[in-house]
């Protein structure tokens, strides 16, 4: 909870509950994966969205088949929320292991709300954290009629939270009805009973209720979803109607959603026999006239790289989603890592240029998907969307897009043309245009998109001159794209001591790190890269304004001491001031980690503090 709440756990002077105004709260819910703790987190996130608050969540799920410890952290704020929060204000724990494993994630003086049926508080911790025990399991059983099962304890616990944080009851009731409605009426009734029982439980020993400051009025209604959903819906809005994939965590949600939704739009998504078939089938769909999508995570991307090379060579548009996870190999399937930058930018045989975009948050997943489709079409090129497990599973609220304006139709046009040369070298922009099969070409000469080096019609050639010209053509169009990319701006002043450069999902924590550093007078600014390949023009100008450039990445520093983006930037700009801050613990950046590492590195470089 923000500064105004420091008095929150101070000893109460009277017996009556007080209401304390807060700006934000970080709540960590710890239990087992089948306890429905994601549901509580989801309810809280959705409620925040409906209350015009900002919200960001963070969750861990075990990669076991069933069960196992799991957490869901939700940060709700009346102002801007940039990360899921380093430390929790409240820990809601259902088991002894949840309590013991996560107490350290709690701020000193924070509140532990525990299920007294399963958790035995430790005296040494009772001094530092305010402990509130409620027999959540047994009270749930009692509330819904003593069936002996504690299913519903998550909803009961949400009632407790609603009471503590003075949440909007009509809105929560509506959320519960929406979530459980449509099924058996008794399920809704049971859920509401659990909720009300929790809400009306007396929390005498807590003595305080927190109330969020009224958030600023937002112009537009907010929608609440996770990154995978935003990405999938973005693809639909962009007009994608065909795709193919193979299940792999954490990409699978996207393919499930597309399989479920696309038929409504006359499209379909195919589950294939393997990763290679998936990209091949998607390329077939693209060739058939409409940019198609495939995607994967980790090992699956490796399998797709041969066909990706074909897409580069044949200049076939396609969107490939890579939801990064911990690697290499099977690695850490349910953890986050930014270690696929190299394979995304360079993975493949031969010189095979492609575009790589890294969305910076959940909302950006939606818009990046549309941009990826449009770049693929405009430049007739494969585009990789490099998202990660962190964004994929976290929930955020963002202003509802204007769908009527945004949704686009990218149906193929089969109107006959007089002649057609897909790989025309005389075109000033050098960009290939493919015609969908079924299009009549009046001069009777038909093209063959191919993986062999080819002439302007796609027919094979061994000509040294043509290979040089075609290679240059494929590369130059991406150079041209670099000029189309919006100019970058630093977060914070464009001059200072340290520039923290990040990409993709680390944007939020980096911004928050910059805010905190500047708050105490440190000359730190941030820069977030979304266009990874090609890089935007003008980066060297931005770098000039700073003494140090630290590239913050969730990947290993490698043999030579630089993370994957840092290595690219050093190669590109030959700037020795570019240094690396990396970690590979499979977790998202904490703001504190970034700041500590920044200060240490700057200190080692000879006192860069202003």
């Amino acid at each position, binding site marked *: 909870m923000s500064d105004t709440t420091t008095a929150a756990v101070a000893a109460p002077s009277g017996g009556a509950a007080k209401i304390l105004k807060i700006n934000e709260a970080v709540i960590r819910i710890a239990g087992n994966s089948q306890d429905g703790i994601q549901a509580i987190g989801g309810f809280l996130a959705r409620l925040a969205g409906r209350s015009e608050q900002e919200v960001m969540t963070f969750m861990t799920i075990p990669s076991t088949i069933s069960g196992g410890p799991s957490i869901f952290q939700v940060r709700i704020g009346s102002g801007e929320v940039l990360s899921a929060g380093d430390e929790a204000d409240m820990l809601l724990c259902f088991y002894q292991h949840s309590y013991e494993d996560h107490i350290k994630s709690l701020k000193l003086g924070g509140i532990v709300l525990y299920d007294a049926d399963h958790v035995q508080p430790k005296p040494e911790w009772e001094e530092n954290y305010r402990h509130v025990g409620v027999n959540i399991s047994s009270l749930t059983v009692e509330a819904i009629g003593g069936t002996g099962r504690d299913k519903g304890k998550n909803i009961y616990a949400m009632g407790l939270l609603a009471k503590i944080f003075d949440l909007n009851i009509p809105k929560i009731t509506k959320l519960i009805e929406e979530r459980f409605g449509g099924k058996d009426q008794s399920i809704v009734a049971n859920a509401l009973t659990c909720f009300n029982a929790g809400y009306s439980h007396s929390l005498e020993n807590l003595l305080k209720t927190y109330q969020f400051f009224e958030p600023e009025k937002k112009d537009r*209604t907010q929608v609440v979803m996770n990154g995978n*959903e935003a990405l999938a819906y973005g693809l639909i809005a962009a007009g994608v109607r065909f795709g193919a994939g193979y299940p792999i965590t954490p990409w699978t949600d996207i393919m499930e959603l597309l399989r479920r939704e696309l038929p*409504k739009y*006359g*499209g*379909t998504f195919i589950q294939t026999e393997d990763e290679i078939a998936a990209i091949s089938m998607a*390329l077939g769909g693209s*060739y058939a006239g409409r940019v198609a999508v495939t995607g994967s995570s980790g090992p699956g991307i490796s399998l797709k790289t041969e066909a990706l090379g074909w897409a580069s060579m044949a200049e076939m548009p396609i969107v490939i989603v890579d939801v990064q996870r911990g690697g290499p190999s099977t690695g850490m399937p349910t953890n986050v890592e930014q270690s696929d930058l190299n394979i995304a930018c360079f993975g493949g045989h031969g010189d095979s240029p492609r575009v790589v975009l890294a969305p910076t948050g959940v909302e950006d997943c939606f818009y990046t998907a549309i941009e990826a489709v449009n770049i693929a079409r405009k430049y007739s090129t494969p585009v990789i969307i490099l998202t990660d497990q962190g964004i994929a599973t976290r929930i955020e609220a963002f202003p509802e897009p204007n769908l009527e304006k945004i949704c686009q139709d990218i149906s193929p046009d089969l109107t006959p043309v007089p002649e057609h040369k897909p790989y025309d070298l005389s075109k000033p922009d050098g960009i290939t245009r493919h015609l969908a*099969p079924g299009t009549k070409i009046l001069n009777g000469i*038909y093209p063959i998109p191919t993986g062999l080096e080819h002439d302007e019609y796609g027919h094979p050639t061994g000509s040294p001159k043509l290979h040089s010209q075609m290679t240059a053509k494929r590369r130059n169009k991406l150079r041209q794209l670099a000029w189309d990319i919006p100019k970058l701006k630093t977060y914070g002043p464009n001059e200072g001591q340290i520039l923290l450069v990040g990409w993709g999902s680390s944007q939020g924590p980096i911004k928050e790190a910059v805010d905190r550093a500047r708050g105490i007078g440190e000359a730190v600014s941030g820069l977030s890269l979304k266009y990874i390949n090609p890089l935007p023009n003008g980066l060297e100008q931005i770098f000039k304004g700073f003494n140090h450039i630290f590239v913050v990445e969730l990947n290993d520093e490698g043999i030579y001491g630089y993370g994957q983006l840092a290595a690219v930037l050093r190669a590109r700009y030959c700037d020795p001031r570019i240094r690396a801050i990396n970690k590979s613990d499979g977790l998202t950046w904490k703001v504190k980690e970034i700041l500590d590492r920044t200060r240490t590195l700057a200190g080692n470089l000879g006192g860069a503090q202003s």
Partner: protein
Amino acid sequence: MSILTSPSPTNLNPIPPTVAGVPGITTTTPPAGAERKGLTKKEIAADHPTWCPGCGDFSVLALYFKLIEKRRMVHEQITTVAGIGCSSRFPYFVQAHGVHFIHGRALPFASGISLSRPDLHVFVFGGDGDAFSIGGNHFTHTARKNIKMTYCVMDNWVYGLTKKQTSPTSPLGFKSKTDQWGAVDHPINPMKQAIAAGATFVARTTHTNPNHVLQMMEAAMDHDGFSFIECLSECVEFYEGAFDASNPRKGGVFTEVPKDHDVTDEGAAYKLAGNPFPGNFGIFYKNSAKATKNAKEAEIVKSHQAKVAGLKDWQILQKNFDRMK
């Protein structure tokens, strides 16, 4: 109506302006009632094939031209797909929309076209390495899913493009550059493979009998589903005489599938496939009762679209967003 549902040549009318099941495809309306001429061999022939003189693949290409001519097909109705190998150079020699994809993956690529463009007939040509070695997994699953297309494997029992290595159909004892002492691995039986995988049309022919090749191609094209033809196609350079035993001109015998063979009997077809070389030629198996994946997907689309009838695409999406507020 598309060629997918109108096998008879007299029904090969121009493609309708709006293609059923393919939302929003723009095309010009052909003159009403105009019956178009099919393509001539001159119009459909492109580059001179790069195959060695005497290669069996010439015959398959010539018969593909003949098929297009005979069935009065036009450019708007077909697309030709291939992977990698000598025979997979095929699309370059056909003056029509076509694709040269990567080794072994022609079938999933072709599936992408077939499933998103019901107005096109997709023909896939390739060799035994492409089909049964590197592409083995795709062969099984494309057959199982019964995705509408015609797949003609030009089987020469050897890797030709890379100059004489053992192929998945090379017989035991075949001396190649990778089996200098003779092949030791049992070859795949393509017919058995296709039947077991669930292909709904399985036929066998040989390049030395052009009329039979054309007959099989026509029957395959008319089949609504995944139609597979194994066409023996001799590699005169690296496996000369491989199929002499099936060629009457070389003292062999060309034995058709027995007249009393029931093509709907999977067990009988499998048994037929077990006959020792030169075996039988003709349609081994045909199952018209199994719905294509194309039809099943179209059905799913139809039922889902009925639920959102009258809504524009953005309105359908809006309904989802409304639930996420």
